[in-house]
């Protein structure tokens, strides 16, 4: 038997609505995300990238097929168990609105551990905070942080629990290119150095070039896969999809 992959999808389908207004957003997606890999999920707007991530990460329920996190089939879990999987085995970074405004940066970072009733490993917290250069911002509230800093706090929160996989949905979508580069560099480093599995949804070829692999989605299906994607290669495939 092969090693259990941190995240996998088998023939995943998702249809929004029913009857005449039904929108098939995913039409059978199968993919594996190996341990310590950094995958970019690419595709034009409306191709089903976010839907794919939501179903795979247990944020939403698929219509058909299976999503696995650490070998666990999410489709058989009830809401309580699914919540626990998200809390303990998955890290999230969203495009915006990642942080609770009432909590300080460090409280936001520790929130998933807090919810689980666990305490953070101080060494790990220090390492994550240090490498994200958040040391002097820990007691600030989100309103007092820049967009880049807010996203870095979100990444710290995603990493500090030591999850099976980190999902990021357009994490750089609302950032300037400088902050975006810093952030993507950090994601790549945590993959290389810590062996963290990362799945990142993006429509930006440059962002995708930080990943080891790019999956290309179109109209709810995986239509292509690139290893060690370069911006030009990605752009080329994207153009061909648009044509």
């Amino acid at each position, binding site marked *: 038997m092969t090693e259990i992959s941190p995240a996998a999808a088998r023939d995943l389908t998702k249809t929004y609505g029913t009857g005449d207004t039904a929108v098939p957003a995913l039409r059978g997606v199968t993919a594996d995300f190996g341990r310590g890999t950094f995958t970019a999920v690419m595709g034009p707007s409306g191709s089903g990238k976010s839907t794919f991530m*939501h179903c795979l990460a247990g*944020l*939403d*329920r698929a219509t058909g097929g299976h999503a696995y996190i650490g070998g666990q089939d999410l489709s058989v879990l009830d*809401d*309580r168990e699914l*919540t*626990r999987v*998200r*809390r*303990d085995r998955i890290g*999230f970074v*969203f495009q*915006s*609105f*990642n942080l*609770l*405004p*009432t*909590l300080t940066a460090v409280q936001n970072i520790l*929130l*998933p551990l*807090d*919810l*689980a*009733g666990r305490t953070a490993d101080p060494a790990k917290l220090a390492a994550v905070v240090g490498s994200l250069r958040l040391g002097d911002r820990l007691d600030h509230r*989100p*309103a007092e942080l820049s967009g880049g800093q807010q996203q870095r706090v979100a990444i710290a*929160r995603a990493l500090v629990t030591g999850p099976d996989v980190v999902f990021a949905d357009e994490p750089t979508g609302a950032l300037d290119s400088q902050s975006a580069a810093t952030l993507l560099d950090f994601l790549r480093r945590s993959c290389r150095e810590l062996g963290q599995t990362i799945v990142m949804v993006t429509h930006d070829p440059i962002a995708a070039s930080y990943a080891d692999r790019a999956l290309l989605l179109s109209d709810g299906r995986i239509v292509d896969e690139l290893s060690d994607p370069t911006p030009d290669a990605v752009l080329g495939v994207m153009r061909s999809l648009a044509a």
Partner: protein
Amino acid sequence: MTAVPRTRFPMARNALAELRLNPHRVIAVVVAIMISVGYLTASVTVLAGESATFEQSVIARTAATDVVVTVGAGDPAEHAALATRISTVAGVASADLSFLSQGRVTGSSDWVQQQSVPANPKLRWADLTEGRWPATPGEIVLGSVTARQLNLDIGDRITINDRNSSATLTVTGLAHEGNSLLSGLAPRSFVAPSFYSVAGSIHTSLQTEILVIGDGTVTQDQLAARVTAVAGGDRVETSAGFTQRKLAEKTQGVFIFQLLLLVFGAVALLVGSIMIVNTFLILVAQRRRQIGLLRAVGAGRDQIRRGLLVEATAIGATGSLLGVGLGVALAACVAAVLDGEFALPAGQVAAVAAVGVMIAVLSVLVPARRAVRIAPLDALRAVADPATERRTSLARRAGSLGLIALGLAAIGLGFTDTTVALLYSVGGSFVCAAGLLSATGLFLPPLLRGLGSALRRTGPAARLATDNAVRNPGRAAATGAALMLAVGLVVALQVGAAGMKATADGNLDVRYPVDVTVSMFDGALPARATGDIAAVSGIAGAAGVRSSRVTVRGGGKPRPVRVLGPGADAMAVVSGLHPPVSAGVVLADPYLLDEIGLRDGGPVTVTGRSGSVTLPVRADHLAPDEGLVVAPQVLATLDDGAPVGTVWAKARPGADVTALRSQLRSAVEPLTGAEVGGGLSAKLMYHAALDRLLALTTMLLAVAVLIALVGVGNTLGLSVLERTRESALLRALGLQRRQLRGMLAVEAALLSLSGAVAGIAAGTFFGWIGTHAVSGQLNLENVRFSMSVPQTLTVAAVAVGAGILASVLPGRRAARATPVEALAER
């Protein structure tokens, strides 16, 4: 070319579209206005009905009459002669005498009013529900409510007496007596006119009238003029003028009642408007980006303001209309239950509805000011500028603290010996309460944090809840203020009433030390009397007291009085802690002391059948009316053969008084010449009056509490709505549904608990001040503080419980959504 549609009122249209699209956001405001307006409408309508019922009872008596002659005190024979003389005046069809008297129901301390019913059938205005009208002097018809109170029925006999005489009558019928809130206060009965002219009856008429009916040939005014000519000095009025005068005399009570209801209505409106302001502030905060966008595309400040005003007017009008419907329906129910008139005072109801709309519009002025400050740039900002939720300004803080200090100073003055103590206390309390309300922003957030810190340890959900509760201090303070006002008023009333009761009890025990006395004017009671009275159920104990008649000599001329010498067994049935009567003192009725010109503590000489003593005299209510009390051995000196002429008895606490009285009556009736007295009735009257007042006011205040709770629910619901994305994020990060619901419940509990705690603290304080002020006004001594802990805890539990309940709906809505639905960009 296509025609370009042009909208005349873009902002109004926008405002109304807002209401159509998001009705649930303003439902609570509509409900608050509906409750306030409904309450006020019901109040004015019920009062109008009551007044109509009351007027009818006043008018009914002279409805068939054309002219009323009110005759002064004088010889009944002369009155009869006058009536005969009037009946011969041209244009007069009949002239009948009508009497009104009052008598004590012998063997009890109840009073009953007798109204004579003329033999002329046209003048028998009351409706007989059973039996027949009195035809002979020995017959009486009782009001139905009165009969029930006295525990009497047709065929029973009743003895009534006044100072000079007594009469025993047979009940021949029962008359309808409306169960109105205002009438039926005086127990009523009807007798034949001949009742006043026979021997062995009550002769003193308190109000004698001659009811004149014309033959229809002349107007009332002309008839009145003709009657005046023969009436001499007596007052002659047309029946219209007569009823008008009577109504004017009697509507005082209605007015006070009206005032009371309106004051509570105003409280409900105040709580409602705090809530409305709060809701609109939240709505403005939530629409910040939308308003910014409107400004960016060219909407002027006036237009933004006008939009909000239109919205408020629409909300106010909807709430008012619903409220009027609710109130009228309620009043109709009340009229049906009380079997009274239903009258719709259209003008007043319209005014109340207008007030509802006005409150809504006025309440939106402050939020509108905040709305027009929103800059076009706000459309682009994801997070609100902190200035939108500004903290209480320094000036306002100083103002509130100043008000509190001023109020406390005035309350302090109320404790000093001044003739206007009540004014100081009440005025000071108002000022102080206003200060406290406006200072909620200062003390409620710390209170919330304090209460929350106790909960923080229980888990992450409670920690998040605490943070949420204080994230908008202004909003939390306003919500808390509404609840604090409502809870504070209820608790102030409860504490005030409990204190008043305790204080009054102490004073009543001093004023009325003996519950029941049965005594002979002179001589001995039959030997079985003590046993008979002790056997009455509801009597806890009875003891015989020896008594005699003596002469007391103080400053003026000697005066014959009764003297009692209660032994230890008699002192045991005295209420309160009365010390035994010392052999070195004479206790006298304080009024007697006054009458015979004696000084408290001065010497008095008492001379009895077998001896005489000279001792210092002391005023004490233990002495019977116009009588004395001495130690048994002193009585033995005064009259060595003094018989047991009096029985003292103590009522069992909580005994059924109606039953007790009627049994006592039957026990005492066979004892010829025995008279029943004692403080039981007076005490119970005070208690009943206080209880009724407390029940009534608590009920009326419940309306304000209800509105405050709707406000808590609304604030919570809107905050949950506003935090949909936050809830979704928490759910994505691993917060269970149950925990999310728990978080919102804790937040609600914290908000309502802090309001309740502040309200209870303030209410207890003001209740105590009130007890002090009112006791001072009533010359009560030894003011006692008292509060019922279970009652207060109930109020707190209701407030917190309802707050948690209010979190259920928003909590369910927040927890139902999947994390993705809520994260979706809107």
